[in-house]
């Protein structure tokens, strides 16, 4: 390649000059392209590769309307605006555009953020509508980005707010199903890394692009029936206001599968404006989150235990003196005067504590609630009816309650004597309702659930019909006897309130509230648990209410709530009366 040049001519100088320059170029290129290659690749990447999160869409939440899912919680897209101050070319223009288009959405100090040249990421505005975002996009501002953020909207307003919970600004579910099933609802964000051109338009060059699509969250269908929920919320609100209670909870369950058809508390909150709630207690779903001593409703459980163990029947008798001595404690009846030899049905009808303490004793040696009797009661209450332990319903912040084991010092005879009528133990309204389902449904315990299935691609996909977690916790015969007894107990005093032709049974509860140093007589929790149906129980309704310094009676205050809902349920579910 060396040219033949005339020696000593000036063209030789030019040739040498060209060659020297070529060598300088080669060295410089070697430096740039080989030695500093990684440096420049890094610079190129930093500038060319845009990383993006592909946000998963949070699942919507449906309630049932009969057999069809209807939306309770939907999403709307709002936009978070962020900037990369290091690449912003015209900070003042960015500020002007943001002020004119999204003046109400910008953060207070966003002007400083835009000018933070050393920073690569600053969020400057929240919750822009699509229209606002499009207006800003039209300006083609360099260094301004958008992140679509999903926000929850509630077409049914406050309906089932404490079952639903809410989603906070960071997109995390709190309380209710939003909290408990947060992962399932949230899905999994995808990720996008693309090489883009100078205006951030992705290019299809090279193999450097990564795309992991987002996995959207499941659209949940709750077992909550919109109409039932709406009804019981109305009832709860009206009754609570009328009675002046601080809290009123209603749970409606299907005893044949454990599905919660309605769960209402008063007071509740507005999930669309969760951030305005000042009393954090309002987020709590009292029916699952509040322990209480359930009181006389538990007598149905004691009776079931005794019958199932074969130590007593409804028609068996005992001698009632209105008081009974257990160890160092004297237990009295609330209703007095039904003394003498009476049946356990009568004890049930009048809710006589002595009768149930007697059942406890008969589970033992006849005169004492022995360790064997206590073990039996613990087995039935805790292990079979699942009282005093979290039910596992798909709702966040569930309280467990508690039953003191007979193996413990505190699990003594006096405690278990109290437990025969529902004192000295803690449970939630849902636990009582779920246990009562097993008492009346033939003896199968279903885990309470609020989830019916999912909606996939617009089609409802129901979960498999729930199976009992425990079959035969009591025999079907025991269960039949309890249905009969609770029906009679209800009918003995309140037969006229129910629609004729149906099987409606239930048990009142008036529990004393443990205060420092003992039980208070001036403050009681009223409750009622009962079932309704024709040939078989179709629903179980649990009502509980509480008011600071208020004496609330199961029969006087809670029972009418049950009755109102029960009669309405018979119509709503179109249950045919017995022929």
């Amino acid at each position, binding site marked *: 390649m060396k040219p033949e040049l005339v020696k000593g001519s000036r063209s030789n100088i030019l040739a040498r000059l060209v060659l020297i320059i070529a060598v300088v*170029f080669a060295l410089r290129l070697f430096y740039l392209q*080989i030695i500093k290659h990684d440096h420049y690749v890094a610079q190129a990447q930093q500038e060319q590769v845009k990383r993006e999160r592909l946000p998963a869409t949070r699942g919507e939440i449906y309630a049932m309307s009969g057999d069809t899912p209807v939306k309770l919680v939907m999403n709307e897209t709002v936009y978070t605006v962020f900037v990369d101050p290091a690449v912003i070319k015209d900070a003042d223009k960015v500020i002007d555009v943001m002020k004119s288009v999204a003046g109400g959405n910008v953060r207070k100090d966003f002007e400083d953020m835009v000018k933070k040249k050393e920073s690569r990421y600053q969020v400057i505005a929240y919750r822009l509508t699509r229209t606002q975002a499009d207006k800003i996009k039209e300006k083609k501002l360099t260094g301004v980005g958008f992140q679509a953020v999903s926000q929850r909207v509630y077409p049914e307003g406050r309906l089932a707010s404490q079952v639903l919970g809410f989603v906070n600004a960071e997109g995390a579910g709190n309380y209710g199903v939003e909290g408990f099933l947060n992962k399932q609802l949230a899905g999994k964000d995808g990720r996008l890394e693309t090489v883009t051109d100078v205006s951030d338009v992705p290019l299809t060059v090279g193999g450097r692009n990564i795309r992991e699509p987002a996995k959207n969250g499941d659209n949940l269908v709750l077992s909550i029936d919109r109409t039932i929920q709406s009804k019981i919320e109305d009832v709860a609100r009206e009754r609570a206001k009328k009675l002046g209670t601080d809290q009123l909870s209603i749970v409606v369950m299907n005893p044949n599968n454990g599905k919660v058809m309605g769960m209402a508390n008063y007071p509740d909150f507005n999930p669309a404006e969760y951030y305005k709630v000042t009393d954090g207690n309002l987020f709590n779903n009292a029916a699952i989150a509040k322990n209480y001593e359930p009181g006389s409703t538990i007598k149905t459980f004691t009776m079931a235990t005794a019958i199932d163990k074969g130590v007593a029947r409804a028609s068996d008798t005992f001698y009632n003196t209105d008081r009974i001595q257990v160890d160092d404690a004297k237990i009295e009846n609330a209703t007095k005067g039904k003394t003498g030899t009476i049946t356990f049905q009568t004890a049930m009808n009048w809710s006589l504590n002595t009768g149930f303490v007697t059942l406890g004793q008969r589970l033992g040696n006849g005169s004492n609630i022995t360790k064997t009797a206590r073990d039996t009661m613990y087995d039935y209450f805790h292990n079979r009816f699942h009282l005093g332990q979290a039910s596992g319903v798909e709702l966040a912040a569930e309280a467990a309650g508690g039953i003191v084991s007979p193996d413990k010092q505190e699990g003594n005879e006096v405690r278990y004597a109290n437990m025969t009528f529902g004192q000295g133990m803690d449970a939630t309204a849902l636990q009582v309702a779920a246990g009562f389902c097993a008492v009346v449904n033939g003896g199968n315990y279903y885990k309470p659930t609020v989830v019916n299935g999912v909606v996939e691609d617009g089609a409802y996909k129901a979960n498999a019909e729930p199976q009992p977690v425990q079959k035969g916790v009591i025999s079907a015969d025991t269960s039949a006897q309890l249905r009969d007894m609770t029906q009679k107990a209800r009918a003995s005093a309140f037969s006229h309130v129910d629609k004729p032709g149906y099987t409606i049974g239930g048990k009142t509860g008036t529990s004393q509230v443990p205060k420092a140093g003992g039980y208070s007589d001036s403050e009681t929790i009223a409750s009622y648990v009962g079932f309704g149906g024709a040939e078989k129980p179709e629903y179980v309704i649990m009502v509980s209410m509480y008011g600071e310094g208020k004496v609330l009676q199961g029969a006087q205050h809670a029972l009418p709530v049950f009755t109102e809902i029960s009669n309405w349920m018979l119509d709503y579910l179109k249950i045919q009366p017995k022929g």
Partner: protein
Amino acid sequence: MERGGWTRRGRSAPEGVVRVHKPDRLILVMTFVLMLVGLLVIYAIGPQRANLMNSLGYDYSDQYFFVKQAVSFALALIAFFAAYKIPHSFILKHGSKVLWAGFIACIGLAIAAKVGIVEETLGAARWISLGPLGSIQPSEILKFGLLTYLAVFLGVRMKEGAINDLHKTLIPIAVIVGLALFMIVVVQRDLGTGISLTAIAASMLFVGGLDKKYLAILGVTMLVLGLILIFTSPHRVERVMTFLQGDNTSVSDADSYHIEHAKIAIGSGGIFGVGIGDSVQASGYLPEAINDSIFAIIGETFGFVGTMALIALFVTLLMRLLQTMDHLLDPKLRLLVAGVFGWMAAHVILNIAAMIGIFPLTGITLPLLSYGGTSMIFITAALGLAYQLSRYTVHTSQVKEATGNEDSRSRRGVGRTRHASRRGA
């Protein structure tokens, strides 16, 4: 009258001795290969360019730039073969006319711009629109005219041994070149073309045997003029400041944006490059990707291997030009090739040097590769002319013999000129 004398004398000497032979194929091959590389790169990045321009509100099809460059490619080939076929004597005879045509076109353009007939871009009018035929750059005509005119003028002076004669040679040259530079650099504000004009004249004077004293004066004058030009223009000051910062500049600094992105493009190419069509810098990060910055895109696309190969192609072409020049007997022809060499070398060296950050940006194209018809057509015409002249070369021994005489003549001439000039002064 006088011109006729030059031509007569110019023709007389070599043609009796020189046997016309086959041209130096390498000149053709190198020219063609380099043009092909340019066309390939524009094919690869044309769609990105169109996309970028469209995002600024234009409406170009993906293939627009490629098709336009392909047309220029064809025209350039025609120009090359035309310059190869048309007898050099004819071209040289009419060189002055081309020069005047260039001057007239430039003056016309300046007047048209003043009265507002021609649109100005970047504060200056450099283009004459020919409607559907595209547009033409008068400065290129001027450049080609200067090349041919100076070859004849200096060739005659060389033969007379008057190359260093201040009145007969140097002052007229200074006036002509000065006028041309004034048109290009001051009126059209095109420093790049100004530099290549200077390079053409300077390489001719250098090869023609300009005295070292004058070479030094020429060098100092160019340096001073360069400094004046730099300090009278803020953007040139910025470019120089950027250059002086070396590799320590950053992309966020607007002044160094261009050069920094050229380095990112070249550096990210690595050894083998990112491959054809995978250039990312061409998508808008690197300014002037298809024009002045095409070397950086080649660096990104083909890597170190590619840049080395490209430099090798250019060096080969330049060396063949030097070799052709060295083996021509007629001084006019020698100077003509010297001018082509200077033109080519100035463009290649200054363009690449700027792209790799060892010289300030001057806005000069990479010949045969950069997008743009006029400059490609004129440089290929110049190369075609050199290709024609490569048929007239003689063997080295013959050159020695001839130049030996010539040298002695020049030496005598030099002495005489010096003497004459002293007398003149």
